[in-house]
């Protein structure tokens, strides 16, 4: 068991899914992200950690251009997804977000039925030709989100009527329904109880087989549990990026050490 874990964690031959180079983010005059270089590997969970306001969520939101929606926000540098610059003028952000899905801190199901929550993305992106195909996508997405067995008999019930943990898994099902290649998660468990958290973490580990997952979390233990790579952000800088097992046993940078061990910087 231990040996398997070692090889699993030690793998370093993965393809690079997202390549970020010299990324700068400005909110008006505020320089929020400073010169960040990072490689996000395919089929790997990468955790972003750091104190509030360090820029980790801002950087995460660059990866699917969610920052476009903020007027005063300006992004510089290159973010290359599968060899293509996602900030290129020819890239349609809506298509991009189908490829790079996102799950938020608070479960935010649409005020629609469970079925429609999951079917929405595939419908607007035209991923199904008929009802049967759509049914199939909804079922497989709910199965991948480990929610199918709990909701299969009440697909017409409102998504908002589910428990918090179920709602979050519904949002994950919604995100995977468009067959994304990268899944961004911004503190996906912070509003969940420990059991729902464990279910989402188990799910993240399964999703890793098919996707590249990037998760922002405030829980050191969660980052240590779910990720293979960890990036530590501080004051807009990427301070340290490396194997999770290394970061949590013997980090290089004293700022990383202070933060993860809960010391006064």
């Amino acid at each position, binding site marked *: 068991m231990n040996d398997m874990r070692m090889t699993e964690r030690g793998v370093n031959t993965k393809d690079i899914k997202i390549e970020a180079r010299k990324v700068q983010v400005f909110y008006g005059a505020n320089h929020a992200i400073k010169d960040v270089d990072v490689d996000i590997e395919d089929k790997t969970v990468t955790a972003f950690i750091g104190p509030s306001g360090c820029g980790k969520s801002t950087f995460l939101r660059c990866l699917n251009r969610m920052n476009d929606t903020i007027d005063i926000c300006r992004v510089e540098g290159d973010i290359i997804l599968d060899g293509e610059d996602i900030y290129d003028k020819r890239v349609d952000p809506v298509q991009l977000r189908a490829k790079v899905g996102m799950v938020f801190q608070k479960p935010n199901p649409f005020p629609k039925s469970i079925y429609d929550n999951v079917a929405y993305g595939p419908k607007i992106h035209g991923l199904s030709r008929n009802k049967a195909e759509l049914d199939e996508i909804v079922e497989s997405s709910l199965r991948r989100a480990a929610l199918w067995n709990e909701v299969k008999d009440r697909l017409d019930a409102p998504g908002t009527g589910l428990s918090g943990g179920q709602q979050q898994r519904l949002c994950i099902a919604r995100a995977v329904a468009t067959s994304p290649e990268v899944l961004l998660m911004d503190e996906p468990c912070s509003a969940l109880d420990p059991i729902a958290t464990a279910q989402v973490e188990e799910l993240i580990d399964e999703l890793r087989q098919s996707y590249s997952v990037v998760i922002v979390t405030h829980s*050191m*233990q969660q980052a*240590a549990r779910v990720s293979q790579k960890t990036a530590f952000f501080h004051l807009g800088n990427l301070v340290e990026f490396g194997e999770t097992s290394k970061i*949590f*046993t*013997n*980090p290089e940078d004293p700022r*990383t*050490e*202070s933060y*993860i*061990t*809960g*010391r*006064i*910087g």
Partner: protein
Amino acid sequence: MAHSEHIVSGFDRDLEGIQAQIMRMGGLVEEAIAKATEALETRDLELARAVRAGDKAIDALDESVNDEAARIIAQRQPIASDLRTVLTVFRVSTNLERIGDYAKNIAKRTETIIDQPPVNGTGASLRRMARQVELMLKDVLDAYIQRDAALAADVRARDIDVDQMYSALFREYLTFMMEDPRNITTCMHLHFMAKNIERMGDHVTSIAEQVIYLVTGDMPEDDRPKQDRTAHDAGNLT
């Protein structure tokens, strides 16, 4: 300590608490080594008994350190240097407990051979060897509390002297036994005592390696030079 304080001050108190227990254990163990060999040299039955009785306190501390370290893992989920501190506390405590057992065993054997006629000069050489281990232990405990990897590496290198002393004693006892079979009982016991002290040196070395791990995050990779060849060439003594 090298690091700044935790935001949760109770965590600092916990870590300091278990390390203070380790230092107390270390003090008791140093004392046990010194007294055990003194009892042998001066043929002091009372002192030997006191060493045997004193081992209970060391065992109790070992148990307490283990309980406390387990509690800290459960309640504080230590990581990085904190994790290494807790991990090394477990191991160092085990090493110290074993050294205490060896001292106790020396005291026990002292009681056994106390009425036998002494074999010339052997008590003093054992005492010298024990003194060397005692000094190494003192230094390694200093290295531990100061987080001094260089001093730990120095202690680790010094174990070779203990091994050499053991090899010399091994030959000496063999010679005594060959000279006069009446020496055999005593020399067998003395040899076990020498072996006990040699093993103590190994445990001190292991503590030194823990200190290096604690400070650097890595165990030393190079093999230590080994000088005890008695397992290989004992038969070729003459």
